[in-house]
């Protein structure tokens, strides 16, 4: 039987608990909402100072609520409040400028350093591809047409005359073509950067597609060199290639190496779990690859503009070698270990 009595309702824990802490939660909710809407800058310093305190008190409220209260709405509210506050306190990356600074001073060179073995492998694969293609084309020039994709050689094939080949190497730009040069540079950059991203991402399939890309890159290189070398233009052609090629090929090798790293981590995880190794490899390799986009932008400028305006062999070699040494020094110069690989 139910009976009606004139007495206060039994207070449940949630009621007492809400009365004691609700203002704190509301304050935290207000600050977090403001940060979510307009970022840290849109919130007064006073609020930022109390944020961690309020966050910890909300966390402890959540723990207490879970153990003592059956008010589902209260627990759900505190869960989402704490989660949102957590991401604002722990999950937010540092400012873009500091991230960028850290990227260039620490994390990128370090990520490339970690890839030195894979980079060496990528170099050997490229060189092997180049040598094989060189020998193939020297013994039988028809190989050239097998190796090179249609239309990419623009007449630079074994049948071309010395005169023509020479003009492709030393043909400087007239001033009215400056706009075309810049366009050419951006085209080369976006094309090569896309290749760099592919060779990273394709490493996921246990390195195989990346090996293919890197070797093929070497094959094209070797075939081209042979065409010019057969006409006695090797020195000039290599200079034509070197001015940007040291940067460009190096960048492609690094991004290939990044692909190798994730492929190897997935194929041979060693003692750790495959997922953990993949994450560690993926993050650091991605940094190395992300940086190659910058290298390829530099290479695009050197190729699109520098090469067309600098036509002496000596200057081209000097620029190419200086760039390579510069990159080496930048990446492999020993630096203090600050622990974190971003």
């Amino acid at each position: 039987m139910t009976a009606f009595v004139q007495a206060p309702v039994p207070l449940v824990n949630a009621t007492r608990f809400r009365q004691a802490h609700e203002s704190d939660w509301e304050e935290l909710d207000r600050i977090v909402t403001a940060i979510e809407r307009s970022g840290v800058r849109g919130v007064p310093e006073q609020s930022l100072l109390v944020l961690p305190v309020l966050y910890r008190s909300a966390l402890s409220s959540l723990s207490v609520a879970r153990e003592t209260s059956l008010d589902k709405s209260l627990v759900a509210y505190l869960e989402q409040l704490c989660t949102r506050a957590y991401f604002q306190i722990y999950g937010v990356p540092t400012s873009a400028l500091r991230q960028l600074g850290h990227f260039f001073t620490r994390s990128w060179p370090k990520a490339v350093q970690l890839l030195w073995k894979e980079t060496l492998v990528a170099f050997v694969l490229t060189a092997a591809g180049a040598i094989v293609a060189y020998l193939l084309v020297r013994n039988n020039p028809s190989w050239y047409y097998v190796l090179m994709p249609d239309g990419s050689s623009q007449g630079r094939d074994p049948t071309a005359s010395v005169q023509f080949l020479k003009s492709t190497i030393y043909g400087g730009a007239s001033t009215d073509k400056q706009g075309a040069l810049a366009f050419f540079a951006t085209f080369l950059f976006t094309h090569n950067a896309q290749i760099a991203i592919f060779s990273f991402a394709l490493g996921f399939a246990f390195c195989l597609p990346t090996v293919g890309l890197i070797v093929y890159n070497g094959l094209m290189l070797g075939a081209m060199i042979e065409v010019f070398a057969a006409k006695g233009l090797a020195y000039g052609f290599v200079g034509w290639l070197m001015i940007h090629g040291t940067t460009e090929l190096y960048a492609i090798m690094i991004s290939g190496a990044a692909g190798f790293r994730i492929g190897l981590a997935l194929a041979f995880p060693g003692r750790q779990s495959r997922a953990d190794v993949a994450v560690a490899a993926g993050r650091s390799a991605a940094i190395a690859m992300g940086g190659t986009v910058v290298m390829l932008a530099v290479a695009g400028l050197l190729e699109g503009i520098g090469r067309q305006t600098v036509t002496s062999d000596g200057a081209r070699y000097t620029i190419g070698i200086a760039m390579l040494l510069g990159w080496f020094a930048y990446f492999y110069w020993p630096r203090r270990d600050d622990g974190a690989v971003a």
Partner: protein
Amino acid sequence: MARSPKPVSASATLRRSFVTPEGVDLRIELGSAGARAGAFMLDLLIMLVVLIVGTIVIGTTAVVNESILLSGLWLIGFFFLRNGWFALFEMGGRGATPGKRIIGLRVVARDGSRLTGGAVIARNAMREIEFFMPMSFFFATIVQSGTDKMISFVALVWSAVFLFFPLFNRDRLRVGDLLAGTWVVQRAKVKLGHDIAASLAQSDRPRRTFSDHALGLYGEYELQTLEQVLRDGDNDAIVTVAAAIRRKAGLPDDHDDYGFLSDYYAALCARLERQMMVGLRRADKYAETTRDRAA
């Protein structure tokens, strides 16, 4: 004793333990595959609009100025739209692209640490082989008639394998998430519901008291379902639930279903919480009251 299966809602299966450095489990909710796909589609749509508007603006200026430099600008713009859209937005403080923000999703590192640039680049570089590369093959072969239709078919299958990948793992991870150590969580924003027991206490109408038998019928699960019914305020549900409780407890109908349910709720809640304080918990009506082992 036969224990009937407890209904598991779809969202319950996407709850994951997520322990903060302070040692509290936040039990975050992952974004469902549907929400992820929706956000991706929104992003593609916005990117397409940006691409079209950008192309028109650059195209008309280029024609007016007869400048080839601007087509270089277009190339750069296209490159950054394709490769940078997702990465740059996710590196920002919100950890979400515009599409994700609209749907209410957020990219988070699985270990709870800061979302680093490396992780964001990794998860979005993989998008290239998951979607953009096969799709560009697909459209290239569609546009050029006479080329091998096999390639477009292979490209579709290839892309489908990756696009459906999140459905085949528990945590709805993309290949990119797998490699970057990230996952995508639902950004819930819940208002604090009103305190049912407290609002009862404020009104000075007489309240019902219940016998031990009537209060012993249900456990925590039923209590919280009742709480949901009271908060939703759906009249049909209130009538049905009130009738069910009265029938079980053998109580007469007093024609005030809402008042009856809120009184019953307050009484049951107070009782269960009292037991909880001494370590006695009862999960649902099928369970016996058990002593909390953790305590």
